[in-house]
Protein backbone atom coordinates (compact mmCIF):
# COMPACT_ATOMS: atom_id res chain seq x y z
CA UNK A 1 0.00 0.00 0.00
CA UNK A 2 1.15 3.57 -0.75
CA UNK A 3 2.19 5.81 2.12
CA UNK A 4 -0.88 6.70 4.18
CA UNK A 5 -0.19 10.40 3.58
CA UNK A 6 -0.46 9.85 -0.18
CA UNK A 7 -4.03 8.60 0.03
CA UNK A 8 -6.90 10.78 -1.10
CA UNK A 9 -10.08 11.13 0.94
CA UNK A 10 -12.08 8.82 -1.36
CA UNK A 11 -9.38 6.11 -1.29
CA UNK A 12 -8.97 6.35 2.47
CA UNK A 13 -12.73 6.19 2.93
CA UNK A 14 -12.81 2.87 1.05
CA UNK A 15 -9.84 1.38 2.93
CA UNK A 16 -11.36 2.42 6.27
CA UNK A 17 -14.70 0.90 5.26
CA UNK A 18 -13.01 -2.39 4.36
CA UNK A 19 -11.22 -2.43 7.70
CA UNK A 20 -7.80 -2.39 6.03
CA UNK A 21 -6.64 0.43 8.26
CA UNK A 22 -7.89 2.41 11.24
CA UNK A 23 -8.45 6.12 11.56
CA UNK A 24 -5.82 6.05 14.29
CA UNK A 25 -3.17 4.72 11.85
CA UNK A 26 -4.20 7.21 9.18
CA UNK A 27 -4.29 10.12 11.64
CA UNK A 28 -0.98 9.16 13.28
CA UNK A 29 0.73 9.22 9.86
CA UNK A 30 -0.58 12.73 9.24
CA UNK A 31 0.29 13.95 12.74
CA UNK A 32 3.86 12.78 12.16
CA UNK A 33 4.05 14.39 8.70
CA UNK A 34 2.67 17.64 10.17
CA UNK A 35 5.40 17.71 12.85
CA UNK A 36 8.09 17.08 10.22
CA UNK A 37 6.81 19.98 8.12
CA UNK A 38 6.95 22.62 10.85
CA UNK A 39 9.48 24.67 8.86
CA UNK A 40 6.70 25.45 6.35
CA UNK A 41 4.85 27.30 9.17
CA UNK A 42 1.50 26.14 7.81
CA UNK A 43 0.00 25.58 11.25
CA UNK A 44 -0.76 28.12 13.98
CA UNK A 45 -1.80 25.32 16.32
CA UNK A 46 -0.97 21.62 15.98
CA UNK A 47 -3.29 19.29 17.90
CA UNK A 48 -1.62 15.84 17.85
CA UNK A 49 -3.28 14.45 20.99
CA UNK A 50 -6.67 15.91 20.18
CA UNK A 51 -6.44 14.35 16.70
CA UNK A 52 -5.59 10.89 18.01
CA UNK A 53 -8.44 11.08 20.54
CA UNK A 54 -10.86 12.01 17.77
CA UNK A 55 -9.46 9.18 15.60
CA UNK A 56 -10.02 6.64 18.38
CA UNK A 57 -13.58 7.90 18.81
CA UNK A 58 -14.10 7.49 15.06
CA UNK A 59 -12.76 3.94 15.12
CA UNK A 60 -15.12 3.18 18.02
CA UNK A 61 -18.09 4.61 16.08
CA UNK A 62 -17.19 2.50 13.08
CA UNK A 63 -16.95 -0.61 15.26
CA UNK A 64 -20.46 0.12 16.52
CA UNK A 65 -21.78 0.52 12.97
CA UNK A 66 -22.20 4.31 12.65
CA UNK A 67 -20.22 6.13 10.00
CA UNK A 68 -20.41 9.60 8.50
CA UNK A 69 -19.31 10.75 5.05
CA UNK A 70 -15.84 11.75 6.33
CA UNK A 71 -15.57 9.09 9.02
CA UNK A 72 -12.01 8.96 10.35
CA UNK A 73 -10.55 11.43 7.81
CA UNK A 74 -7.91 13.83 9.27
CA UNK A 75 -8.39 17.46 8.20
CA UNK A 76 -6.86 20.84 8.96
CA UNK A 77 -9.03 23.86 9.82
CA UNK A 78 -8.23 27.41 8.77
CA UNK A 79 -7.68 29.53 11.88
CA UNK A 80 -10.63 31.71 10.88
CA UNK A 81 -13.14 29.06 12.01
CA UNK A 82 -14.02 29.21 15.70
CA UNK A 83 -13.26 25.90 17.38
CA UNK A 84 -14.66 25.33 20.85
CA UNK A 85 -11.98 25.39 23.53
CA UNK A 86 -9.18 25.73 20.95
CA UNK A 87 -7.21 28.91 20.26
CA UNK A 88 -8.58 30.81 17.23
CA UNK A 89 -6.44 33.70 16.01
CA UNK A 90 -7.51 34.73 12.46
CA UNK A 91 -3.75 35.25 11.98
CA UNK A 92 -3.95 38.40 14.12
CA UNK A 93 -2.21 39.68 17.24
CA UNK A 94 -5.45 41.35 18.31
CA UNK A 95 -7.09 37.96 18.97
CA UNK A 96 -4.29 36.92 21.35
CA UNK A 97 -5.44 34.02 23.48
CA UNK A 98 -8.99 33.95 22.09
CA UNK A 99 -10.55 30.58 22.91
CA UNK A 100 -14.07 30.40 21.50
CA UNK A 101 -16.76 28.98 23.76
CA UNK A 102 -18.58 27.74 20.64
CA UNK A 103 -17.94 25.83 17.41
CA UNK A 104 -18.47 27.21 13.89
CA UNK A 105 -21.29 25.49 11.99
CA UNK A 106 -18.97 24.37 9.17
CA UNK A 107 -16.47 22.69 11.50
CA UNK A 108 -19.30 21.23 13.60
CA UNK A 109 -20.72 19.73 10.37
CA UNK A 110 -17.33 18.12 9.67
CA UNK A 111 -17.11 16.56 13.14
CA UNK A 112 -20.72 15.40 12.74
CA UNK A 113 -19.58 13.67 9.51
CA UNK A 114 -16.85 11.87 11.49
CA UNK A 115 -13.79 13.94 10.49
CA UNK A 116 -10.71 14.35 12.72
CA UNK A 117 -9.06 17.74 13.44
CA UNK A 118 -5.26 17.87 13.01
CA UNK A 119 -4.89 21.55 13.89
CA UNK A 120 -5.49 25.15 12.83
CA UNK A 121 -3.84 26.56 9.72
CA UNK A 122 -1.92 29.79 9.30
CA UNK A 123 -3.40 32.53 7.13
CA UNK A 124 -3.11 36.17 6.15
CA UNK A 125 -4.31 38.38 9.02
CA UNK A 126 -8.13 38.43 8.97
CA UNK A 127 -7.88 36.79 5.51
CA UNK A 128 -6.53 40.04 4.03
CA UNK A 129 -3.71 39.12 1.69
CA UNK A 130 -2.76 37.03 -1.30
CA UNK A 131 0.63 35.71 -0.18
CA UNK A 132 0.31 34.76 3.50
CA UNK A 133 2.86 37.44 4.35
CA UNK A 134 0.45 39.45 6.53
CA UNK A 135 0.04 36.77 9.22
CA UNK A 136 1.10 37.81 12.73
CA UNK A 137 2.56 34.30 13.02
CA UNK A 138 4.90 34.75 10.07
CA UNK A 139 4.53 33.68 6.45
CA UNK A 140 3.82 30.16 5.24
CA UNK A 141 6.26 28.64 2.76
CA UNK A 142 4.97 27.02 -0.41
CA UNK A 143 6.00 23.34 -0.57
CA UNK A 144 6.79 23.99 -4.26
CA UNK A 145 10.04 25.55 -5.42
CA UNK A 146 11.21 26.50 -8.86
CA UNK A 147 13.11 23.76 -10.60
CA UNK A 148 16.78 23.84 -9.58
CA UNK A 149 16.21 26.77 -7.21
CA UNK A 150 15.95 26.85 -3.42
CA UNK A 151 14.35 30.26 -3.10
CA UNK A 152 11.27 30.19 -0.84
CA UNK A 153 7.98 31.02 -2.56
CA UNK A 154 4.66 32.24 -1.18
CA UNK A 155 1.79 29.74 -1.07
CA UNK A 156 -0.78 32.36 -2.05
CA UNK A 157 -3.38 33.62 0.35
CA UNK A 158 -5.21 34.07 2.41
CA UNK A 159 -5.72 30.31 2.87
CA UNK A 160 -2.00 29.60 2.32
CA UNK A 161 -1.64 27.40 5.40
CA UNK A 162 -4.58 25.23 4.35
CA UNK A 163 -3.28 24.91 0.78
CA UNK A 164 0.23 24.07 2.05
CA UNK A 165 -1.03 21.45 4.52
CA UNK A 166 -2.84 19.67 1.67
CA UNK A 167 -0.07 20.09 -0.96
CA UNK A 168 2.58 19.09 1.59
CA UNK A 169 0.59 15.93 2.37
CA UNK A 170 0.07 16.45 6.07
CA UNK A 171 -3.70 16.99 5.83
CA UNK A 172 -6.07 15.09 3.53
CA UNK A 173 -8.16 18.21 3.13
CA UNK A 174 -8.51 21.60 4.77
CA UNK A 175 -11.22 24.17 5.28
CA UNK A 176 -10.58 27.57 3.75
CA UNK A 177 -12.47 30.79 3.08
CA UNK A 178 -12.66 32.98 0.00
CA UNK A 179 -13.63 36.68 0.05
CA UNK A 180 -11.85 37.66 -3.18
CA UNK A 181 -9.94 34.54 -4.19
CA UNK A 182 -8.47 33.27 -0.91
CA UNK A 183 -9.30 29.63 -1.69
CA UNK A 184 -8.78 29.49 -5.46
CA UNK A 185 -5.54 31.50 -5.73
CA UNK A 186 -3.58 29.50 -3.07
CA UNK A 187 -4.97 26.28 -4.59
CA UNK A 188 -3.56 27.40 -7.97
CA UNK A 189 -0.19 28.28 -6.36
CA UNK A 190 0.15 24.90 -4.62
CA UNK A 191 -1.22 22.46 -7.22
CA UNK A 192 -4.34 21.69 -5.17
CA UNK A 193 -8.07 21.87 -5.85
CA UNK A 194 -9.90 24.73 -4.14
CA UNK A 195 -13.59 25.52 -4.41
CA UNK A 196 -15.56 28.56 -3.35
CA UNK A 197 -19.19 27.51 -3.45
CA UNK A 198 -22.19 29.78 -4.06
CA UNK A 199 -22.65 32.52 -1.46
CA UNK A 200 -25.00 31.04 1.15
CA UNK A 201 -24.04 27.40 0.52
CA UNK A 202 -21.84 27.15 3.64
CA UNK A 203 -22.85 28.81 6.89
CA UNK A 204 -20.77 31.80 7.97
CA UNK A 205 -21.78 31.30 11.61
CA UNK A 206 -18.69 31.10 13.81
CA UNK A 207 -16.35 32.14 10.99
CA UNK A 208 -14.43 35.32 11.90
CA UNK A 209 -15.96 37.93 9.57
CA UNK A 210 -13.95 39.91 6.99
CA UNK A 211 -16.51 41.17 4.42
CA UNK A 212 -19.85 39.58 5.20
CA UNK A 213 -21.48 39.97 1.78
CA UNK A 214 -18.51 38.26 0.08
CA UNK A 215 -17.08 35.73 2.59
CA UNK A 216 -17.73 32.08 1.78
CA UNK A 217 -16.16 28.88 3.14
CA UNK A 218 -15.02 25.98 0.97
CA UNK A 219 -12.60 23.04 0.87
CA UNK A 220 -9.04 22.60 -0.40
CA UNK A 221 -8.16 19.01 -1.36
CA UNK A 222 -5.81 17.14 -3.70
CA UNK A 223 -8.45 16.14 -6.25
CA UNK A 224 -11.91 17.09 -7.48
CA UNK A 225 -13.70 14.06 -6.05
CA UNK A 226 -12.31 14.73 -2.57
CA UNK A 227 -13.41 18.34 -2.94
CA UNK A 228 -16.97 17.31 -3.79
CA UNK A 229 -17.07 14.92 -0.81
CA UNK A 230 -15.74 17.53 1.61
CA UNK A 231 -18.00 20.33 0.38
CA UNK A 232 -20.99 18.01 0.84
CA UNK A 233 -20.08 17.65 4.51
CA UNK A 234 -19.35 21.37 5.10
CA UNK A 235 -22.43 22.80 3.35
CA UNK A 236 -26.07 22.98 4.32
CA UNK A 237 -28.74 25.34 5.55
CA UNK A 238 -28.11 26.92 8.94
CA UNK A 239 -30.79 29.01 10.66
CA UNK A 240 -28.03 30.72 12.68
CA UNK A 241 -26.76 32.51 9.54
CA UNK A 242 -29.42 34.80 8.06
CA UNK A 243 -27.70 34.61 4.65
CA UNK A 244 -27.51 30.81 4.65
CA UNK A 245 -29.47 29.46 1.68
CA UNK A 246 -32.37 27.15 2.45
CA UNK A 247 -31.95 25.07 -0.70
CA UNK A 248 -31.58 21.30 -1.21
CA UNK A 249 -28.04 19.94 -0.80
CA UNK A 250 -27.21 17.79 -3.84
CA UNK A 251 -24.84 14.82 -3.84
CA UNK A 252 -21.85 16.66 -5.34
CA UNK A 253 -19.80 13.49 -5.77
CA UNK A 254 -22.56 11.94 -7.88
CA UNK A 255 -22.26 14.90 -10.27
CA UNK A 256 -18.82 13.67 -11.39
CA UNK A 257 -20.15 11.76 -14.39
CA UNK A 258 -17.24 12.70 -16.66
CA UNK A 259 -19.82 13.48 -19.34
CA UNK A 260 -19.92 17.09 -20.55
CA UNK A 261 -21.19 16.38 -24.08
CA UNK A 262 -23.39 19.21 -25.26
CA UNK A 263 -22.48 21.55 -22.39
CA UNK A 264 -21.81 25.11 -23.45
CA UNK A 265 -18.61 26.54 -21.94
CA UNK A 266 -18.07 30.29 -22.08
CA UNK A 267 -14.62 31.82 -22.63
CA UNK A 268 -14.65 35.51 -21.64
CA UNK A 269 -12.49 37.73 -23.82
CA UNK A 270 -11.95 40.22 -20.96
CA UNK A 271 -9.83 37.68 -19.05
CA UNK A 272 -6.88 38.24 -21.37
CA UNK A 273 -4.64 40.66 -19.50
CA UNK A 274 -1.81 42.86 -20.69
CA UNK A 275 1.45 41.56 -19.31
CA UNK A 276 0.07 38.14 -18.36
CA UNK A 277 2.69 35.41 -18.87
CA UNK A 278 2.22 33.72 -22.24
CA UNK A 279 2.26 30.29 -20.64
CA UNK A 280 -0.97 31.09 -18.77
CA UNK A 281 -2.71 31.89 -22.02
CA UNK A 282 -1.30 28.70 -23.55
CA UNK A 283 -2.63 26.67 -20.62
CA UNK A 284 -6.03 28.32 -21.00
CA UNK A 285 -6.11 27.40 -24.70
CA UNK A 286 -5.16 23.85 -23.75
CA UNK A 287 -8.06 23.73 -21.31
CA UNK A 288 -10.42 24.96 -24.01
CA UNK A 289 -9.14 22.17 -26.27
CA UNK A 290 -9.69 19.51 -23.57
CA UNK A 291 -13.30 20.57 -23.06
CA UNK A 292 -13.98 20.69 -26.80
CA UNK A 293 -12.52 17.18 -27.22
CA UNK A 294 -14.76 15.97 -24.41
CA UNK A 295 -17.77 17.10 -26.40
CA UNK A 296 -18.48 20.54 -24.96
CA UNK A 297 -19.33 23.47 -27.17
CA UNK A 298 -17.01 26.44 -26.67
CA UNK A 299 -18.70 29.85 -26.80
CA UNK A 300 -16.88 33.19 -26.91
CA UNK A 301 -18.53 35.46 -24.36
CA UNK A 302 -18.11 38.97 -23.01
CA UNK A 303 -18.26 40.06 -19.37
CA UNK A 304 -17.84 43.77 -20.15
CA UNK A 305 -17.44 45.09 -16.58
CA UNK A 306 -14.68 42.64 -15.57
CA UNK A 307 -11.95 45.29 -15.30
CA UNK A 308 -13.99 47.20 -12.74
CA UNK A 309 -14.43 44.20 -10.42
CA UNK A 310 -11.14 44.64 -8.58
CA UNK A 311 -11.44 48.39 -7.83
CA UNK A 312 -15.10 47.90 -6.81
CA UNK A 313 -14.01 45.05 -4.53
CA UNK A 314 -11.42 47.33 -2.90
CA UNK A 315 -14.23 49.63 -1.82
CA UNK A 316 -16.85 47.06 -0.81
CA UNK A 317 -14.53 44.66 1.06
CA UNK A 318 -12.65 47.30 3.14
CA UNK A 319 -15.95 49.06 3.93
CA UNK A 320 -17.45 45.87 5.32
CA UNK A 321 -14.16 45.03 7.06
CA UNK A 322 -13.93 48.40 8.80
CA UNK A 323 -17.37 47.77 10.20
CA UNK A 324 -16.80 44.09 11.12
CA UNK A 325 -13.44 44.79 12.76
CA UNK A 326 -14.90 47.49 14.99
CA UNK A 327 -15.55 44.71 17.51
CA UNK A 328 -11.82 44.40 18.31
CA UNK A 329 -11.77 47.02 21.03
CA UNK A 330 -9.75 45.49 23.84
CA UNK A 331 -12.89 44.99 25.92
CA UNK A 332 -14.51 41.67 25.04
CA UNK A 333 -11.68 39.44 23.81
CA UNK A 334 -8.05 39.32 22.82
CA UNK A 335 -5.43 42.00 23.23
CA UNK A 336 -5.73 45.15 25.38
CA UNK A 337 -3.18 47.96 25.46
CA UNK A 338 -3.96 50.34 28.30
CA UNK A 339 -4.35 54.09 27.77
CA UNK A 340 -5.15 57.21 29.78
CA UNK A 341 -8.85 56.92 28.95
CA UNK A 342 -11.23 54.65 27.04
CA UNK A 343 -10.57 56.22 23.61
CA UNK A 344 -6.82 55.98 24.07
CA UNK A 345 -7.18 52.36 25.17
CA UNK A 346 -9.11 51.62 21.95
CA UNK A 347 -6.53 53.44 19.82
CA UNK A 348 -3.54 51.80 21.51
CA UNK A 349 -5.09 48.33 21.34
CA UNK A 350 -5.97 48.61 17.66
CA UNK A 351 -2.59 50.20 16.78
CA UNK A 352 -0.73 47.32 18.44
CA UNK A 353 -3.14 44.57 17.40
CA UNK A 354 -3.61 45.16 13.68
CA UNK A 355 -0.86 44.63 11.11
CA UNK A 356 -0.10 47.04 8.25
CA UNK A 357 -2.44 45.52 5.64
CA UNK A 358 -5.40 45.28 8.02
CA UNK A 359 -4.82 48.86 9.16
CA UNK A 360 -4.65 50.00 5.52
CA UNK A 361 -7.96 48.35 4.68
CA UNK A 362 -9.75 49.54 7.82
CA UNK A 363 -8.63 53.11 7.01
CA UNK A 364 -9.77 52.82 3.36
CA UNK A 365 -13.08 51.36 4.54
CA UNK A 366 -13.57 54.11 7.10
CA UNK A 367 -12.79 56.74 4.48
CA UNK A 368 -15.22 55.44 1.81
CA UNK A 369 -18.00 55.20 4.38
CA UNK A 370 -17.35 58.61 5.94
CA UNK A 371 -19.69 61.57 5.50
CA UNK A 372 -19.24 63.23 2.10
CA UNK A 373 -17.54 60.24 0.45
CA UNK A 374 -20.18 57.53 0.85
CA UNK A 375 -21.95 58.27 -2.46
CA UNK A 376 -18.80 58.82 -4.49
CA UNK A 377 -17.16 55.59 -3.40
CA UNK A 378 -19.34 53.07 -1.57
CA UNK A 379 -22.59 53.64 -3.44
CA UNK A 380 -20.71 53.79 -6.75
CA UNK A 381 -19.04 50.44 -6.00
CA UNK A 382 -22.38 48.87 -5.10
CA UNK A 383 -23.76 49.98 -8.47
CA UNK A 384 -20.75 48.53 -10.30
CA UNK A 385 -21.30 45.35 -8.33
CA UNK A 386 -24.80 45.05 -9.78
CA UNK A 387 -23.42 45.50 -13.32
CA UNK A 388 -20.88 42.73 -12.72
CA UNK A 389 -23.54 40.37 -11.36
CA UNK A 390 -25.75 41.26 -14.34
CA UNK A 391 -22.90 40.44 -16.78
CA UNK A 392 -22.85 36.89 -15.40
CA UNK A 393 -26.63 36.61 -15.42
CA UNK A 394 -26.67 37.58 -19.09
CA UNK A 395 -24.04 35.05 -20.19
CA UNK A 396 -25.60 32.24 -18.17
CA UNK A 397 -28.65 32.62 -20.41
CA UNK A 398 -26.52 30.95 -23.09
CA UNK A 399 -23.66 29.06 -21.38
CA UNK A 400 -23.56 26.41 -18.63
CA UNK A 401 -20.13 27.23 -17.19
CA UNK A 402 -17.14 29.49 -17.78
CA UNK A 403 -13.45 28.57 -18.11
CA UNK A 404 -10.71 31.08 -17.12
CA UNK A 405 -7.20 30.99 -15.64
CA UNK A 406 -7.22 30.97 -11.80
CA UNK A 407 -4.46 33.52 -11.25
CA UNK A 408 -2.36 35.79 -13.47
CA UNK A 409 0.96 34.21 -12.41
CA UNK A 410 2.55 31.23 -10.67
CA UNK A 411 3.76 31.47 -7.05
CA UNK A 412 6.27 34.29 -6.48
CA UNK A 413 9.08 34.88 -3.95
CA UNK A 414 8.53 36.53 -0.56
CA UNK A 415 8.72 40.30 -0.67
CA UNK A 416 8.10 40.45 -4.41
CA UNK A 417 4.94 42.53 -4.13
CA UNK A 418 5.14 43.55 -0.48
CA UNK A 419 5.76 47.25 -1.20
CA UNK A 420 3.03 47.67 -3.79
CA UNK A 421 -0.49 46.97 -2.50
CA UNK A 422 -2.09 47.27 -5.94
CA UNK A 423 0.33 44.75 -7.52
CA UNK A 424 -0.61 42.38 -4.70
CA UNK A 425 -4.34 43.02 -5.21
CA UNK A 426 -3.99 42.11 -8.93
CA UNK A 427 -3.44 38.48 -7.89
CA UNK A 428 -7.20 38.22 -7.46
CA UNK A 429 -8.18 39.73 -10.80
CA UNK A 430 -9.74 36.46 -12.08
CA UNK A 431 -11.32 35.39 -8.82
CA UNK A 432 -12.92 38.56 -7.43
CA UNK A 433 -15.83 38.79 -9.93
CA UNK A 434 -17.32 35.51 -8.63
CA UNK A 435 -17.30 36.87 -5.07
CA UNK A 436 -19.04 40.09 -6.08
CA UNK A 437 -21.67 38.07 -7.97
CA UNK A 438 -21.91 35.33 -5.28
CA UNK A 439 -21.19 32.54 -7.79
CA UNK A 440 -19.38 29.21 -7.34
CA UNK A 441 -15.87 28.73 -8.71
CA UNK A 442 -13.17 26.08 -8.48
CA UNK A 443 -9.45 26.05 -9.29
CA UNK A 444 -8.02 22.82 -10.70
CA UNK A 445 -4.27 22.23 -11.21
CA UNK A 446 -3.83 21.98 -14.96
CA UNK A 447 -0.14 22.24 -15.76
CA UNK A 448 3.33 23.42 -14.80
CA UNK A 449 5.03 26.70 -15.64
CA UNK A 450 8.38 26.67 -17.45
CA UNK A 451 9.95 26.95 -14.00
CA UNK A 452 8.15 23.84 -12.79
CA UNK A 453 5.45 25.55 -10.69
CA UNK A 454 1.77 24.59 -10.72
CA UNK A 455 -0.79 26.65 -12.66
CA UNK A 456 -4.55 26.40 -12.26
CA UNK A 457 -7.63 26.76 -14.40
CA UNK A 458 -10.85 28.13 -12.92
CA UNK A 459 -14.35 26.88 -13.69
CA UNK A 460 -17.25 29.19 -12.80
CA UNK A 461 -20.90 28.12 -12.77
CA UNK A 462 -24.32 29.69 -12.13
CA UNK A 463 -25.54 30.16 -8.54
CA UNK A 464 -26.24 26.85 -6.76
CA UNK A 465 -25.03 24.82 -9.73
CA UNK A 466 -21.89 23.40 -8.10
CA UNK A 467 -22.81 20.10 -9.78
CA UNK A 468 -22.00 21.47 -13.24
CA UNK A 469 -18.89 23.17 -11.79
CA UNK A 470 -17.63 19.84 -10.38
CA UNK A 471 -18.57 17.92 -13.53
CA UNK A 472 -16.53 20.25 -15.75
CA UNK A 473 -13.71 20.37 -13.17
CA UNK A 474 -13.54 16.57 -13.21
CA UNK A 475 -13.09 16.58 -16.99
CA UNK A 476 -10.36 19.25 -16.83
CA UNK A 477 -8.61 17.25 -14.10
CA UNK A 478 -8.70 14.03 -16.08
CA UNK A 479 -7.45 15.65 -19.28
CA UNK A 480 -4.71 17.58 -17.49
CA UNK A 481 -3.50 14.42 -15.74
CA UNK A 482 -1.60 16.59 -13.27
CA UNK A 483 0.63 14.13 -11.42
CA UNK A 484 3.50 16.44 -10.49
CA UNK A 485 4.09 16.90 -6.76
CA UNK A 486 6.52 18.96 -4.73
CA UNK A 487 9.64 17.28 -3.45
CA UNK A 488 9.42 16.93 0.32
CA UNK A 489 12.64 18.90 0.85
CA UNK A 490 11.62 19.82 4.39
CA UNK A 491 11.94 16.23 5.54
CA UNK A 492 15.30 15.35 7.01
CA UNK A 493 16.96 12.52 5.09
CA UNK A 494 16.39 9.29 6.97
Amino acid at each position, binding site marked *: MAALTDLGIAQARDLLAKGEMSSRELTAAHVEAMAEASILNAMVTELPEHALTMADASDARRASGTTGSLEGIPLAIKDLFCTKGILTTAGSHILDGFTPPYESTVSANLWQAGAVMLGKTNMDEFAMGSSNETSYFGPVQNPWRREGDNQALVPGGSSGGSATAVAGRFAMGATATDTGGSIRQPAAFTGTVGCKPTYGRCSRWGVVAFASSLDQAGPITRDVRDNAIMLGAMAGYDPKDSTSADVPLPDFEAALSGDIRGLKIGVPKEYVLDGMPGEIEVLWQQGIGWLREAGAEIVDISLPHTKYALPAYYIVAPAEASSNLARYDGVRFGLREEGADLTEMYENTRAAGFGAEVRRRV*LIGTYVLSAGYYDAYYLKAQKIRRLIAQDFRDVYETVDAILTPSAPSAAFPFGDKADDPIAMYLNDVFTVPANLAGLPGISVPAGLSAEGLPLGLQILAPAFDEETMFRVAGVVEEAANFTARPEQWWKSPS
Partner: protein
Amino acid sequence: MSVDKATVARIAHLARIGVREEELEPLAAELSGILQWIEQLNEVDTDHVPPMASVHDQALRWRGDVVNDGGKPEDIVANAPDGQKGFFAVPKVIE
Protein backbone atom coordinates in the same frame (compact mmCIF):
# COMPACT_ATOMS: atom_id res chain seq x y z
CA MET B 1 -8.70 61.90 -5.02
CA SER B 2 -5.59 62.15 -2.89
CA VAL B 3 -5.67 62.38 0.87
CA ASP B 4 -3.38 64.50 3.02
CA LYS B 5 -1.88 63.94 6.46
CA ALA B 6 -4.75 65.69 8.23
CA THR B 7 -7.31 63.46 6.49
CA VAL B 8 -5.40 60.32 7.46
CA ALA B 9 -5.27 61.52 11.07
CA ARG B 10 -9.02 62.19 10.98
CA ILE B 11 -10.01 58.78 9.56
CA ALA B 12 -7.54 57.00 11.86
CA HIS B 13 -9.31 58.64 14.78
CA LEU B 14 -12.72 57.67 13.35
CA ALA B 15 -11.41 54.08 13.10
CA ARG B 16 -9.91 54.34 16.63
CA ILE B 17 -6.47 53.27 15.42
CA GLY B 18 -3.55 55.15 16.92
CA VAL B 19 -1.18 56.31 14.18
CA ARG B 20 2.17 57.93 15.01
CA GLU B 21 2.96 61.32 13.47
CA GLU B 22 5.80 59.93 11.34
CA GLU B 23 3.47 57.29 9.86
CA LEU B 24 0.92 59.82 8.55
CA GLU B 25 2.85 60.92 5.46
CA PRO B 26 3.64 57.41 4.10
CA LEU B 27 0.07 56.30 4.86
CA ALA B 28 -1.33 59.32 3.00
CA ALA B 29 0.76 58.35 -0.05
CA GLU B 30 -0.35 54.70 0.11
CA LEU B 31 -4.02 55.50 0.54
CA SER B 32 -3.91 58.14 -2.21
CA GLY B 33 -2.43 55.57 -4.60
CA ILE B 34 -5.22 53.11 -3.87
CA LEU B 35 -7.95 55.76 -4.11
CA GLN B 36 -6.58 57.01 -7.44
CA TRP B 37 -6.58 53.46 -8.80
CA ILE B 38 -10.19 53.06 -7.64
CA GLU B 39 -11.24 56.18 -9.51
CA GLN B 40 -11.36 54.29 -12.82
CA LEU B 41 -14.88 53.34 -11.68
CA ASN B 42 -15.94 56.85 -12.74
CA GLU B 43 -15.59 55.75 -16.38
CA VAL B 44 -18.80 53.73 -15.94
CA ASP B 45 -22.19 55.40 -16.24
CA THR B 46 -24.20 54.16 -13.28
CA ASP B 47 -26.91 56.83 -13.19
CA HIS B 48 -29.77 54.38 -13.57
CA VAL B 49 -28.24 51.39 -11.79
CA PRO B 50 -29.64 50.54 -8.35
CA PRO B 51 -26.92 49.73 -5.77
CA MET B 52 -26.47 46.08 -4.82
CA ALA B 53 -25.80 45.31 -1.16
CA SER B 54 -26.29 41.56 -1.29
CA VAL B 55 -26.37 38.81 -3.88
CA HIS B 56 -29.46 37.43 -2.19
CA ASP B 57 -32.74 38.14 -3.90
CA GLN B 58 -34.95 36.84 -1.14
CA ALA B 59 -36.10 38.86 1.84
CA LEU B 60 -34.56 38.08 5.20
CA ARG B 61 -36.30 35.28 7.04
CA TRP B 62 -38.49 35.88 10.06
CA ARG B 63 -38.50 33.88 13.24
CA GLY B 64 -40.40 33.95 16.46
CA ASP B 65 -39.19 36.58 18.95
CA VAL B 66 -38.17 33.99 21.53
CA VAL B 67 -34.99 33.45 23.52
CA ASN B 68 -33.17 30.48 22.00
CA ASP B 69 -29.77 30.81 23.62
CA GLY B 70 -28.25 32.45 26.66
CA GLY B 71 -27.73 31.99 30.39
CA LYS B 72 -23.96 31.81 29.86
CA PRO B 73 -22.47 34.86 31.56
CA GLU B 74 -19.22 33.01 32.29
CA ASP B 75 -18.78 32.08 28.62
CA ILE B 76 -19.48 35.66 27.57
CA VAL B 77 -16.74 37.22 29.71
CA ALA B 78 -14.33 34.27 29.59
CA ASN B 79 -12.17 35.88 26.89
CA ALA B 80 -12.27 39.44 28.24
CA PRO B 81 -8.88 41.00 29.02
CA ASP B 82 -10.52 42.34 32.19
CA GLY B 83 -13.69 40.44 33.05
CA GLN B 84 -14.81 41.07 36.62
CA LYS B 85 -17.78 39.43 38.33
CA GLY B 86 -19.62 38.86 35.06
CA PHE B 87 -18.86 42.35 33.72
CA PHE B 88 -16.51 43.78 31.09
CA ALA B 89 -14.30 46.27 32.93
CA VAL B 90 -13.13 49.37 31.02
CA PRO B 91 -11.17 52.51 31.98
CA LYS B 92 -13.26 55.07 33.88
CA VAL B 93 -15.60 56.86 31.45
CA ILE B 94 -17.50 59.26 33.76
CA GLU B 95 -15.63 61.90 35.74
